[in-house]
Structure formats: C-alpha cells, structure tokens
C-alpha cells in the first residue's frame, strides 16, 4: 500500500520546488515573475508591518516598499535561508526605520527599552474552554482576537506577531528586532500568557455573549 505521507508531502514539495525555480528566474532578470513569488506571503508581509506601525495606511506603504526592496536585492538572497523569512526581515527593518523616522526626537519610554523584571502570573485558572480554529471563520471572533492583541504593549505584540503569526524562529525574531534571544523568550512568554488571560477573562465576563449568539451555546459551533 502506498505511504499516505508521500502523497501528502508532494504538494508542499512541489510548492518549494516552484518557489526555488521562481527565485532563480527572477534572479536572472525575469522580474515579471516576482509577484507570483511573493503572493503567498503578501498577507504576512502586511501583518508584520502593521504589528510595528499600527496604522493600516503606513503598513501598506511599508509592505509595498519592502517588497520592492526585496526585488531590488533578490540577487543577494541565498538559498540557505527561507525566502519568507528573508522577506519578513526586510519588512520589519523597513517598518522599524519608518517608525524611527516618525518618532525622531521623541524619547522612547523606559518600558519600551527594558523587559519587565517581575514575572507574569496567570490570573485565570478556570477550566480552559477550547476555541476551535473553525471559529475563525466568524469575523467577530477574528476581531475579538485582534482587539486582544492590540491591547498588548508594543514590545510584547511585536515579538508575538513575528514568532507566532509570522512563524519566524526565536533567533530570527531576535535578529529582526535587534534584541537578544533572552528578551524574545521573556516577551513571548508574557505575550502568550497575557493573551490567554485576556481571552479567558473575556470569555468569563462574556466577550462572546455580546455577539449575536444564542445564550448558552458555543459561538464557534453554530
């Protein structure tokens, strides 16, 4: 009997091969293929810029500039790196530069520069009520999650977005933000625990109950 894993791995393998082929062709000057190459990542590029800039218009400008910069520097891309990671790192760099320009002269808050020395203690210990992925089909659920993320301090939000949404690894996240691996780990822990508390606390206080669901039902199972 055929190994089902072989069948399942083929699309991903085919995608990776196609990506390598596209990179090689764009590096040889076929710029018209570049959009096909970046299209799978355009959402992630935008999200990375938005996490840093928190303004949709600036995030779009920056995301597009970053993609143009990636095209201009495509010959410097080396196959040992993941293309998506390289693209996100360019974007983060562009977004940080833009933020620095816009905040020139402003003194950065002390909280932005150092990690909290106090450990974060979870606040909610009630049984966790699983929110399944299917719930994300509902715009209201996505909005609630986005609102929770937006309440985090910048330093926690950036690390969380790069690691957990953009799928950079810890070292890549540290490199992209110019902070230490230890800081990434500290901030990531805090971000994850805070989000858990925000969602659990919200649930207990009924953040889903404000949504148009029948009382007593799980919103994601409707």
């Amino acid at each position, binding site marked *: 009997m055929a190994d089902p894993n072989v069948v399942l791995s083929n699309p991903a393998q085919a995608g990776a091969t196609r990506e390598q082929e596209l990179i090689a062709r764009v590096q040889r000057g076929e710029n018209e293929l570049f959009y096909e190459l970046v299209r799978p990542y355009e959402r992630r590029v935008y999200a990375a810029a938005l996490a840093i800039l928190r303004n949709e218009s600036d995030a779009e400008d920056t995301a597009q500039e970053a993609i143009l910069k990636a*095209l201009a520097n495509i010959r410097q891309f080396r196959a040992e790196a993941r293309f998506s990671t390289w693209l996100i790192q360019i974007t983060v760099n562009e977004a940080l530069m833009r933020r620095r320009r816009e905040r020139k002269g402003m003194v950065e808050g002390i909280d932005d520069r150092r990690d909290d020395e106090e450990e974060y203690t979870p606040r909610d210990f009630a049984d966790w009520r699983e929110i399944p992925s299917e719930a994300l089909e509902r715009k209201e659920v*996505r909005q609630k999650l986005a609102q929770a993320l937006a309440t985090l301090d910048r330093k926690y939000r950036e690390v969380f977005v790069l690691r957990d949404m953009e799928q950079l690894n810890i070292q890549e996240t540290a490199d992209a933000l110019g902070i230490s691996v230890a800081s990434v780990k500290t901030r990531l822990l805090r971000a994850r625990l805070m989000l858990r508390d925000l969602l659990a606390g919200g649930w207990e206080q009924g953040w889903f109950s404000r949504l148009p669901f029948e009382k007593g039902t799980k919103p994601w199972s409707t």
Partner: protein
Amino acid sequence: MVNVSCEQVWREISNYLEGDVDAALRAAMDEHFRACKKCASVLQGTRNVIQLYSDERMIDVPAGFGRRLERRLAQIARGSGWSTWSAWLVPVAALVLIAGGVRVANSVAVPHPLLSEHAQPGRDIPPGMLVVVSAGAKDFHVLGCPFIHNKDKERTLTAKEAIDQGYVPCVRCMRKYLQTADSGTISLESEGDAYADADEPSGKR
C-alpha cells in the same frame, strides 16, 4: 523525579511549548500538568492562543492590497523588459546611426527640467532599475549608495520615474551611466555592478 512548582511551570511554559526545555524538566512538567488543574488550564489556553493566532485567517489585508502591489510590480517588470532588449537594441541602433552619418545630439528625453543645472542626464540607464531619491536632494542613487543625503526621507522608484521627475544620476554610484565629454562611450554594465561601485571609497577615483 524532579518536582516543579506552579511558578516554575508558568516561567517555563512558553519554552515547554517551543520544545526548548531539557528532558528532565519536560518530564517534571508533564507530571505537574497531570496533577495540577490550574497549570493544565494555563497550558491548554496558551496552546490554544498560539494555534488560533498562527492561523492565516487572522491576517486581514486592506481591500485591493494585492492588486495594487501587482500593478506596481508589473510597472517595474515592464521597465526591466526594456532593459533586457536594450542589450541588443542599443549597439545595433548605434551602428545604424553611425553608418548613416546621423548625429544625435542628445537622445535622452527629459520631460521635466533637470533639478540641477550642473547635472548630466545620464545615458542608457535601465528605466526599470530601482533607485532611491530623498527629499531636498536633486540626484537619484542605486539602493545602498553611501552618498544618499537625508536618508530619513528617502523613497524608492524606478529610474524612469526619477528621470521624469527631473532627478539626475548620482555622480558616484551612477557614474558608469554618465557620458563624459572625452569618452562618449555607452555603458551597458549591470545594476549589480553599479551597486558594487557605490561601495568603493571615493578616494580611489
């Protein structure tokens, strides 16, 4: 078996989910989660949070984002297509012109007046080449040129757009595209070479 407290578990829970704890600590934490409902809830919730936010559906992009990006990239691609053809067209055209005895004083059309009256317009610059201009400056540069003034206000555009807006080539990083009075040669070197030149110390020239 090593025992761990709830506080230790909370401190390490993110590393645990990353697979970044040693085997002894992992075993101790697994044991703790079996016995402690509070920490099991923290683990379950944290794992759920990561799973939800890592979903592509969590990223909303503004309407038309992809279309605007595609259009911008298509403009650049059209420009670079000219650049590929130019490798053949320019020498052929030059031969035809020489054979016919026709002299063209200045074949580069400059729709806007040059921003600098001392500047040279440049020759055979690939129109799709990405260049950088900055506010208050009159010249355009290859990306990464160390002679860009006012880097805080720089923006990227194609060489054609820069020329149309009256910018002139940087005399350092774009020098291969500048026609000198005595040489009159046409350079067809690549953008990459231009970039490499920009890194040379100016004293070498």
